[in-house]
């Protein structure tokens, strides 16, 4: 019984985290058709910035609960600073190029940002655990569980809902949808496609940074965290269907529960199951669980 509860709680916590770190990737792919390897770097920068700013707040003697809005603020800051820069400066130049080019371009950005972080934050780990510890533990169905994990789930749900509202309920969202559907036709209809792309990518960058900022209190932030995140996010994105956000949420849940199960029963296979699931999904449904297929006319 306790095991089952643990699997569920762990699974949901991990899924929330996965959704947070992959939603932006999925969204950006949907709009820009670019699988952004540097998404992992944005995540890591979000983590560093979040940890630094939260640390400042905590040391200043202010109300420690201020740390949470500061984490959100850090994510918005990172997204606003880097999103437009990367999209306008680099991605824009390769939209109509082959995949290998777009992948390598974002890989190049990844490499550059990787060392950029070392220059700014050094190589020793940064630990700001107070936001995590502050919320304490909650006894629940026979186990005690950190409240912070529930906060993480809350953040993921809010982020997902916000994304949904923007895309489904606003005029801007309609424009995004039309760009996702067909970039050329949208441009011909007078949609300002470049602007949509910039805004969409900035949103994706904020999501990545948000994932990082809320991860920071749970881990020690060190160089190299970007690389691990990006493959996991790729896996979730592929499982849900490239560019499909609700698919991404279900993909995250699936991966989260599967990994939590593996950790309970075969801890050595915790990573294996994630990538095995990714491969299996690609094999049986390459368009992902919720993607569609295109047929070419001759």
């Amino acid at each position, binding site marked *: 019984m306790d095991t089952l509860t643990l699997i569920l709680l762990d699974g949901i916590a991990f899924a929330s985290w996965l959704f947070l770190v992959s939603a932006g990737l999925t969204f950006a792919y949907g709009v820009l058709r670019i699988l952004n390897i540097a998404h992992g770097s944005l995540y890591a920068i979000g983590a560093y910035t979040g940890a630094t700013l939260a640390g400042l707040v905590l040391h200043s003697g202010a109300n420690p609960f201020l740390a949470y809005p500061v984490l959100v603020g850090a994510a918005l800051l990172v997204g606003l600073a880097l999103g437009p820069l990367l999209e306008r400066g680099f991605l824009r130049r390769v939209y109509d190029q082959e995949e290998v080019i777009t992948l390598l371009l974002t890989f190049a950005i990844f*490499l550059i940002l990787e060392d950029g972080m070392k220059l700014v934050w050094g190589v020793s780990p940064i630990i700001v655990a107070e936001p995590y510890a502050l919320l304490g533990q909650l006894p629940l169905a026979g186990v005690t569980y950190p409240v912070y994990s529930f906060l993480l789930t809350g953040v993921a749900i809010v982020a997902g809902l916000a994304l949904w509202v923007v895309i489904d309920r606003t005029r801007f969202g309609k424009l995004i949808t039309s760009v996702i559907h067909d970039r050329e036709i949208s441009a011909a209809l007078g949609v300002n496609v470049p602007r949509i792309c910039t805004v969409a990518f900035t949103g994706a960058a904020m999501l990545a940074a948000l994932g990082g900022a809320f991860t920071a209190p749970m881990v020690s932030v060190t160089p190299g965290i970007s690389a691990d995140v990006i493959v996991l996010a790729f896996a979730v994105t592929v499982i849900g269907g490239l560019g499909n956000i609700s698919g991404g949420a279900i993909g995250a849940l699936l991966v989260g529960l599967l990994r939590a199960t593996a950790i309970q029963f075969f801890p050595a296979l915790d990573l294996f199951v994630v990538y095995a699931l990714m491969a299996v999904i690609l094999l049986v449904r390459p368009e992902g669980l919720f993607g569609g297929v295109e047929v070419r006319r001759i």
Partner: protein
Amino acid sequence: MRGAQVSRTLAGAAPWLAVLLALAILPRLLPDWLGFLLTVAFAKALVVLGVAVLLRSNLVSFGHGLYFAAGAYTVGFAAKWLHLREAVLLIFGAVVVSGALAALLGLFLARYRGIFFGMLTLAFSMILYSLLLRLYWLTGGTDGMVTAPPTILGVVPGAAAGRAHYYLTLVCLALALALTRRWLGSPLGYLASAIRDNEIRVEYMGASVRQGIYRTYLLSGVLGGLGGCLVAFSVGHIAPEFSYWTQSGDFVFVTVLGGYASVFAPVMGSVVFELVRNYAYALSPYTWQMSLGAILLLIVLFLPRGLWSLLAPRAPVSSPWTSSSRR
């Protein structure tokens, strides 16, 4: 008639023989560390050649670390379980293992294109990575394995091991280049280009696209395994990172850095990459990745056909990403 043909063949081969000769005396002129760097660059060039062969069909393998690791760990396991130390046998083993892996995975991969091919290769390589990392009682986990220097045709190289590995790698590379060059000029080699340009036409000529891709993938996997095996010889240490995605990313990086209009481009790319990395690391240990990233950025934006296009601006077969038929 025949005599003329023979002398023409010889004349055609002469420049290559000259290059080979130059490379053969090189280690006597260079400091040891540079000889070692070249050895590793040559070995990795084999993996890059494998990626390049696939790129000619517009297939981006973002998981070639899989074969690199498979070749390397073949050496590790053969030493651990079979007490095998003979280089020729180990090379043979690595070729068989990576070939078998490619034969199996190719069955699935031959159906995929574009981003899906990339993602599936990535998933396969990460599966191997997670196994190498976590099954530590078999693989040594994060620590990897130490591989003792092999005997070469029964001879224990001893103090001259570095130079021996250089020559061994050079011979393997030369053979692989000759083979791949021949392959590219063969019907199957052209079929790969045809597949890149227009799959529908290939099927409408009565050829199987899937089979063409499958065979190309087989070659590419074997080249990857061979490279991994040779790196294990000269470096003497193997780790799960061989199959990690950043390693695969580096291979794609080097492929584009060198270009792939010629089989020699990957070699050039690989040597340049190792040199740059080495110097960048020596100059500034914290920002060597940044230098590499900046170079990659420049290549991608301004020289998408790689360094080789500077040497041979008009390649016989143009780069796939200048062709518009696939989008």
